[in-house]
């Protein structure tokens, strides 16, 4: 990453996120980076701060009927329905391919019941290849669960407290933006033992077809992501960062280094790049090099000094 032509020392991009020491603050968002290995042709994965893999459930899940995705102005709606290979196939087939990848692999987990979450955490506890757990209490797509935990502070706390008893790994609670007060939820999961929070997940939305008078997505509603949601993400990360002492990971509409820096400015200790990976498979790497360039240009020696430096 050091530019041999430049004589200034490389900026220190390392950040600490709830017990994880990351070499830089750029991670990839769950569900937008496959199981990681798909992107190896486009960048040196070891350069990233971390990789968050597709949400895992106890048993394989086929997901929702199609259509599952549709583009919207500066964004997209998805209703994948948390399709995934299941935790056992992940451990047997996907995780070994990431062995030696040179960056922390974070498992994103979701369940329909508190017991599902705790069983997943237990199953992953002995896996040295999993650096941390990101607990998705926010997916708006699965009718039977997900959303119920993420929008109610006491239910959110219940899930996190239970997972906490099953894992010593860093525990990140991934929060839904579909709530009235993000501060309340963030404080609830902090109190239940989360080491960090990540936000935002997608915002519930809808697209309809005037010609057929039907919803575009088979699931009727879906989750909005991409550049369109960045202002919402920034506002919520700013509110969450002021509400809790644990680190906040900023997500939502990050395409460029400037977007990522805006999240760091409002208080995110790290960021995740999501939908942008679909548009440019090297997006996360470009965000990282852009952050490094910004630090050099602005004589920021350690990115830690920049984080949360917003003047209001």
């Amino acid at each position, binding site marked *: 990453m050091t530019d041999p032509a430049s004589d200034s020392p490389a900026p220190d991009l390392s950040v600490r996120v709830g017990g994880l020491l990351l070499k830089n603050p750029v991670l990839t968002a769950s569900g*937008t980076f496959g199981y990681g290995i798909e*992107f190896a042709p486009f960048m040196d994965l070891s350069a990233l701060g971390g990789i968050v893999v597709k949400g895992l459930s106890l048993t394989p899940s086929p*997901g*929702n009927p199609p259509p*599952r995705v549709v583009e919207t102005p*500066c964004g997209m709606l*998805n209703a*994948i329905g948390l*399709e995934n290979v299941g935790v056992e196939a992940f451990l047997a087939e996907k995780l070994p391919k990431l062995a030696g990848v040179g960056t922390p692999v974070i498992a994103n987990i979701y369940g329909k019941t508190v017991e599902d979450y705790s069983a997943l955490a237990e199953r992953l506890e002995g896996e040295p290849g999993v650096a941390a757990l990101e607990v998705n209490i926010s997916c708006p797509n699965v009718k039977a669960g997900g959303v119920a935990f993420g929008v109610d502070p006491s239910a959110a706390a219940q899930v996190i407290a239970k997972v906490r008893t099953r894992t010593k790994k860093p525990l990140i609670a991934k929060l839904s933006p579909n709530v009235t007060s993000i501060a309340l939820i963030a404080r609830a999961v902090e109190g239940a033992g989360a080491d960090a929070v990540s936000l935002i997940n997608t915002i519930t939305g809808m697209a309809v077809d005037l010609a057929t008078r039907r919803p575009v997505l088979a699931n009727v509603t879906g989750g909005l992501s991409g550049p369109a949601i960045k202002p919402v993400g920034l506002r919520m990360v700013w509110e969450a960062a002021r509400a809790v002492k644990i680190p906040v990971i900023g997500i939502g509409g990050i395409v460029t280094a400037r977007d990522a820096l805006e999240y760091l400015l409002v208080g995110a200790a790290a960021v995740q790049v999501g939908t942008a990976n679909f548009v440019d498979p090297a997006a996360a790497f470009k965000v990282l090099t852009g952050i490094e360039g910004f630090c050099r240009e602005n004589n920021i020696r350690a990115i830690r000094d920049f984080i949360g430096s917003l003047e209001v």
Partner: protein
Amino acid sequence: MFEKRVKIKKNEELGPGYFRMELDCPEIAAAGAPGQFVMVRVTEALSPLLRRPFSISDVDAGGSIALLIRVVGEGTRILSEKKAGESVDVLGPLGKGFDIGGLSGPALLVGGGIGAAPLIFLARRLAEKGVPGRVLLGGRTAADILCAPVFESLGMEAETATEDGSLGRKGLVTELLAQALTPGASAFTVFSCGPEGMLKAVAGMCRRSGAACQLSLEAAMACGMGACLGCATPRSGGGYLHVCTDGPVVSASLWPAG
């Protein structure tokens, strides 16, 4: 798999609403196989945001790939207005193409409208392998029958059908297929691309006549490379196929036919 900004060598209007774009892209020309596709970023701006999928319609020895583009919305309109000398960002080659490894008999290509696109590249590779074949092309009007002379130049007899009777037989391309799939014709391998309704009909006819059949499917896509799981389509026997990685070309037996 390559992701690259490439120069547009040509962008010609074939007829109302149809364009043929030639891209200088030696890597994809060398690595691509018939039935595979590319994801094209139509703008550097944030809207339209997602790349658009297009079949590789042809390649040439000079390192070009050709796309056939039907204008249906904003993204395809922007592409249609691009000029030679401008550049676009392409990702590919992607997905699984037609399986032409162990063909036992002649090939029968069945295209509906813009579905002719991947069949041209297929016809070229079949001709190189010395596999005999015919092509059946259907469309609403004569303007929707694409590139019949190109197939003929590759040694394939081309038959056409239009719904309004303005070219070839008046009716659907599946009526031509029904004639071709007469008893004893099961040695054919059918390769088809076109609208979903047509593909279902083609699959059903092949199943009933015992002809092997490969279909090039479509689905709404975000990534084109297996990362988003957006491109699901039902799989025979339950669950889903992912069009960008299990396809776009699949054996008709994997796809629940109409």
